[in-house]
């Protein structure tokens, strides 16, 4: 067992974790933050994407021990109370989701993209979410949602 300190969505947690446990498992099983989904466990599908110190990571490929001392943002940390984050709002309004299973990871990848590049062109959006599989939407409305979100977020500034 190893003691780790994780700051998740602004709250500091001190946890004992097994050396083989992944960040995804700790988020889902220990902290019961089940918004982060596990689709493949191999880093292929992107459903478990969270933001760690500003970068999007597949939480199934990060050991919990490696996340010691890091700042983690999960899908649960995006909305402020009842107020959705502009990316979440755009996904709702523009049909950027269907079954919803890839959605948390997709939104976290989109957030990481827009944090780094607030006005991406379509190609950059496509590349920004290329690590996230979606089998329902054909991506079209996801790409549109991210475009709208980028525009709306700029309006806020």
């Amino acid at each position: 067992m190893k003691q780790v300190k994780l700051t998740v969505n602004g709250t500091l947690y001190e946890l004992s974790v097994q050396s083989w446990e992944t960040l995804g498992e700790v988020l889902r099983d220990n902290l019961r933050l089940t918004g982060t989904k596990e689709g493949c466990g191999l880093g292929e599908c992107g459903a478990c994407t969270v933001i760690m110190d500003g970068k999007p990571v597949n939480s199934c490929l990060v050991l919990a021990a490696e996340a010691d001392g890091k700042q983690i943002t999960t899908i649960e940390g995006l909305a402020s109370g009842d107020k959705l984050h502009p990316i979440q709002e755009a996904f709702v309004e523009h049909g950027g989701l269907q079954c919803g299973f890839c959605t948390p990871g997709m939104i976290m990848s989109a957030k990481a993209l827009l944090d780094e590049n607030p006005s991406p062109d379509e190609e950059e959006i496509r590349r920004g979410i290329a690590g996230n599989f979606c089998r329902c939407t054909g991506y079209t409305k996801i790409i549109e949602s991210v475009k709208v979100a980028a525009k709306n977020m700029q309006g806020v500034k």
Partner: protein
Amino acid sequence: MPEYSVIGKPIPRVDAKAKVTGQAKYAADYELPDMLWGKVVRSPYPHARILNIDTSRAERLPGVKAVVTGKDFGEFKWGYLPTTRDETPLAVDKVRYYAEGVAAVAAIDEAVAEEATELIKVDYEELPGVFDPEEAMKEGAPQVHDYVKNNMAVEYHWHFGDVEKGFSESYLVRKDRFRTPRTTHGYVEPPAIVAYYDPGGYITVWPSKQSPYFIYRHLAACFKLPLSKVRVIQPFIGGGFGGTKNDTGTGDWCAVMLSKKTGKPVKVVYSQEEELVVSRRRHPMIVDIKTGVKRDGTLVAIHHQVIADCGAYTFMSPLSMYLAGCLTTLPYKLPNFKHDAYCPFTNNPATGAMRGHGIAHTRFAADVQLDMIAEELGIDPVEIRLRNAIENPKPGSIYETINKVTLKTCGIKECIEKVAEDTIWKEREKRKKREGNISRGVGFSSASYLGGARLMGHQAAAAVIRVCEDGTINLLTGATDAGQGSDVVLCQIAAEELGLPIEAIDIKRVDTAVTPVDPGTYGSRVTVLAGQATRKAAAEAKQQLLEFAAQTWKVNTEDIEIRDGKVFVKSDPEKSMPFGRLARIACYSGTGAVIIGRGYSSYGIQPMPTTFENGMGNAGTNYSFTAQSAGVEVDMETGQIRCVDTTIAHDCGRPLNPLTVEGQNEGGAIQALGQVLYEDFIMDKGKTLNPTFLDFKMARSTDVPNIKVMHVITDDPDGPFGAKEASEGSITSTPPAVVNAIHDATGVWFKELPITPEKVILALKEKRRPPLRK
């Protein structure tokens, strides 16, 4: 054109907020106190006799609470038809495909369960296997099951009109062989279940099932319980598209049995790799199609022979082979038609339904071949389609195909015309045909798919509308939104009928203890059938409320209207009140009234001439039509193909929610694009060699074309507010459109999917080779 306030509006999904905030709970997110983890032990051979299973070492491992084997399930067998019950929850006497389940364990956590699976010792006697459907049909091939001869799980021979006469009268007859790939649903959520067998004799399960009433009946039959003691509570479903999430799988049977043995809840979550190895994948099919046409391209006769790889168990194959034939007579007029279908068992993984079920294979073959015929005859691809397209029947009349499929609406001509007028097709000559290594091409296709599947006897689909005393509504149906968006559409239907805003309606997910029975989410049936039930239930509740309003105002119920949440007398709009007030008047009237509206779907219950054996009659309540263009770029050096843009015109009757209909069309098109260009399971003697998303190669965001969706409105009389289906049309029309475009770019007709870079390079080499001298 009817005026609607809620229908036809691009309203966001009612579950969207739960999904974007991560609050939506899927099966694997459920956890119960004292819960155990289950794991399935799987066979390392595709075909072997089970000689002995020794579970003793696993049982001794600390933390292991129970082990089950096939014997625990007694004599229970299941299957899609009463005559095809050839499957047991776990293999008993022999395994018939690689990784078939032979035992399962329950332990205190996942790691211990995993470890225990490795301690179960199974002695096998390996048997010769058969992995190719054409080999399987031959005399002397290894027999997968004893109860049929020559492995023939399903065989149909239908003949309508006289194809031989048709061919003899044709100007041109073409024969081609097409092949469809070994593909699968590829939902990102792996199948999962949490099961609790209450020692008092009740089962409660939270499974990832798009058709929860399948598992409901299966569990009652398997565990010999009355249906009233089986409760399926529906979590959110992470994509379905048919397959494993339609039906009961090894993990589901075992979770319940392990719970029964231990008295504790048991959770089983498949790994994605496990799912990709054992999933009820789509049948790969070989389609030999012979078509005869007149000089002007008019179709005279089609005869297709379909050989499908059934895999190790029959499962839904009787339906798959029926669907592979029943709609060849749409969307073009066809006077003579013959369908020979063979679906032999092999030692490959079992197959199942997948979006575009059956129909997509033969439509792909027929529509690519139609372009080949057009080329041979020098007819434009749009022109040959328009010449053959079925006309939209005049209101009140019916078009009947040679195999007695009946249409009341058909927008195929309008779809074709719209796509032909759209820039991709209209300006195709303006595309630079060749630029460096890139060669460009544009293709066209048309298709049809059924809406509101009507299958066998089980059609019951109902809805209940409960009017709460504050004027809000609970809508209960047995229908499942597996991601397609039916929940928002059903809410829209209820809101429109009741005259309420969408926010007033709350739809409940399935709980078999509460919701009315429903067949399931398949065959594009939810909007049509559960939609009609919802509309009727809403109308009935509304009528009850109107009677209270009529009493209050001393007028007739017909004089009252409800719109946008306001109740008023039509001739005297001064007399009005909010809907909530009327609800309170009704509930507090002292009459004891509780306002509950009930409705069931009647579309599906007319007597059907259809049997799978005769291929006649309606598989659907109504039929959608689709035309599509696609533009591709082929790298003639590397063989890499990119689909750059596509336009789809879709007659779904009426798009009740255009945002959802567009999303369904886009999703269906991209799932199909994967089948055309990338996806194929690579098999070695029954073993899947690429069971990961990366190697199976589903489309990513960087692979998809710009998609434009256009609606064609035909208002079908047999659909709620005119609706038919969305999404299975575009998964059917995309393959021929893209393949025809690739031909336009390369001059090569590709007849085997997927069209990988290797196949392109080989075909281009072949094309360049000078003909051999005689």
